[in-house]
């Protein structure tokens, strides 16, 4: 007995019962389809989040003031004053893994222009901030060193602020707006950036020289945070370590003392968000996997029915020379063909579903090739696993009883 003959026998048997074959496959189709769709949608949502986050600069590094102890009393993070302009100078001078460093001080308040007013935030930064945060100018210019040193009352405005303060067609550059009563001359307009990965409007902001915000608005000498660019995303890790070393020296922290600041990289954030979506994908995939298992049990069920129903056929095949092994292989091949065919249809179905989903949710269309390969493998295994027992049952029938079975 050769496998070509057995395959032909199995195909003929399936063709004789097309409708039942399709019904049996349905479980596998839905199972595989949902596994593929879930994993693909998970992968594409991960990619879309990654894309959005890399818009914010994946090589960005943030330094925030951290815990502080004053004689055993923990101070909150928000009013910590551990970062100073001296730190900026030190980082600019010593850090090899950083290309740009900018301080940031910010406050929120009401921006006013004529009859219009708008609640927004003002960020006190230096010129390198645009590169670090991946902002670009639409119009005008960035402030100069001279303006920074002279606490100049100038600013750049984001698109949301422009829309809310200026009438259509009015060029904001050269106009003067007021922020918390302080007049600021608009010298530039930022290009629109849209929402970030967390749904925050990145265009609702005003940028001004950090010196102006520090002294004129907040009346402080420390800075609230530091933004910097690492040489590359891959070097983020090394850059974080370097920043930590420099700042510990600056702050004269003893060996073993806690950091009074916190360094985070955008790469870390991406990792964090990715791990959340990975977890979700895994969860959805597991649920879909269960439905695949149910599909497999469906195949076993039908194969059992089929063996009982075809007892007489099995007896006949045995009496004309079919060995137990031939009979077993026939039923096993039938089960595997059902599950693989179901798997192929399921892959097509799942891919189509994830295409529709990516279209509807406006995400990149990704086919998780690993998931496709895996489902295919799983289908074959399911066919063999769940086909085995009914096939054994068929092979172990007594030909005398089977052929006379009514």
């Amino acid at each position: 007995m050769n496998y070509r003959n057995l395959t032909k026998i199995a195909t003929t048997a399936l063709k004789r019962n097309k409708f039942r074959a399709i019904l049996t496959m349905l479980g596998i189709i839905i199972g595989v389809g949902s596994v593929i769709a879930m994993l693909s949608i998970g992968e594409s949502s991960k990619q879309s989040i990654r894309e959005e986050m890399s818009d914010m600069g994946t090589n960005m590094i943030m330094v925030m003031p951290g815990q502080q102890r004053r004689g055993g009393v923990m101070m909150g993070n928000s009013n910590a004053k551990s970062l100073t302009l001296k730190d900026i100078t030190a980082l600019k001078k010593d850090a090899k893994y950083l290309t740009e460093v900018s301080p940031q001080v910010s406050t929120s308040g009401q921006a006013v222009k004529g009859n219009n007013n708008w609640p927004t935030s003002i960020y006190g930064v230096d010129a390198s901030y645009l590169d670090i945060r991946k902002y670009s100018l639409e119009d005008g210019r960035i402030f100069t060193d001279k303006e920074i040193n002279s606490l100049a009352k100038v600013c750049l405005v984001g698109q949301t602020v422009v829309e809310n303060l200026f009438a259509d067609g009015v060029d904001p550059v050269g106009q003067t707006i007021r922020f918390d009563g302080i007049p600021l001359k608009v010298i530039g307009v930022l290009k629109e950036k849209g929402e970030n990965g967390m749904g925050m409007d990145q265009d609702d902001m005003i940028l001004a020289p950090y010196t102006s915000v520090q002294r004129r608005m907040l009346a402080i000498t420390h800075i609230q945070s530091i933004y910097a660019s690492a040489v590359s995303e891959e070097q983020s890790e090394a850059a974080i370590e370097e920043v930590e070393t420099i700042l510990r020296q600056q702050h004269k922290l003893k060996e073993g003392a806690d950091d009074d600041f916190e360094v985070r990289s955008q790469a870390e954030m991406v990792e964090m968000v990715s791990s959340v979506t990975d977890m979700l994908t895994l969860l959805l995939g597991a649920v879909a996997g269960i439905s695949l298992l149910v599909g497999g049990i469906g195949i076993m069920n039908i194969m059992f029915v089929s063996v009982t129903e075809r007892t007489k056929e099995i007896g006949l095949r045995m009496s004309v020379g079919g060995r137990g092994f031939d009979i077993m292989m026939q039923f096993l091949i039938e089960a595997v063909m059902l599950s693989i065919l179901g798997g192929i249809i399921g892959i097509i179905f799942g891919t189509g579903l994830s295409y529709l989903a990516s279209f509807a949710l406006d995400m990149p269309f990704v086919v998780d090739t690993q998931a496709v390969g895996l489902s295919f493998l799983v289908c074959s295994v399911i066919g063999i696993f769940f086909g085995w027992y009914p096939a054994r049952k068929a092979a172990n029938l007594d030909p005398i009883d089977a052929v006379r079975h009514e």
Partner: protein
Amino acid sequence: MSKAIIKVSELRKDYHVGEMTVHALRGVDMEIYEGDFAAIMGTSGSGKSTMLNILGCLDKPTYGEYQLDGVNMGTMNKNQLAGLRNNKLGFIFQSYNLLPRTTALENVELPLFYNSKVKSKERKERAMHALEQVGLADRMDHMPNQLSGGQQQRVAIARSLVNDPVVILADEATGNLDTRTSYEIMELFQRLNDNGKTIVFVTHESDIARFMKRNIVFRDGRIQKETAVTDRFNATELIKALPVDEDYES
């Protein structure tokens, strides 16, 4: 005397049913020769079915020897017995046992599927030839449910011929058929026998047994008597003598 195709000696078969032991065969000696056409007869419980199962290599005797075409089947394992059935035996059943929703041709091809030496082209040719021998050359693509009972049994006979067996074993092959169709089937068997086929035919109908050359009657697991049929029926003549049935259309 011609060569013995089947040779059994001292054949016994015991079945265990719960605590009891049933002696289905209690020592049978029998020989079937090449070109023989023997009826195995007997009432139910006489052991004729058990005998047929053993002759058909579907069951093994508890004691005794069985040689089929010079091969001792007592020493063979299950798979070798399956090979023996495939190469040397042809089966015909009372209820035809055709695969449903499968054409006559494919039904006849079935035994050859289990013979890896036969390629698909040869398989088809041999099946077509077998169907021609039983007069169904024009029904090859018909499904069993499109065929009459007699035609279905002819397909089954073709299936038993397709592997060119040394002996054909028929189990009540006319049991489900009316008289005329029975005679027609017997006519086919007589023709096959005239052409040299060895046939063993199990039946409980004495008039069917009279179409054969020899009658072997079983009773209580033993051969009660063995007779040569002297006034043998000729199926062709009998069919001519049958009254013309108005309902019957050939």
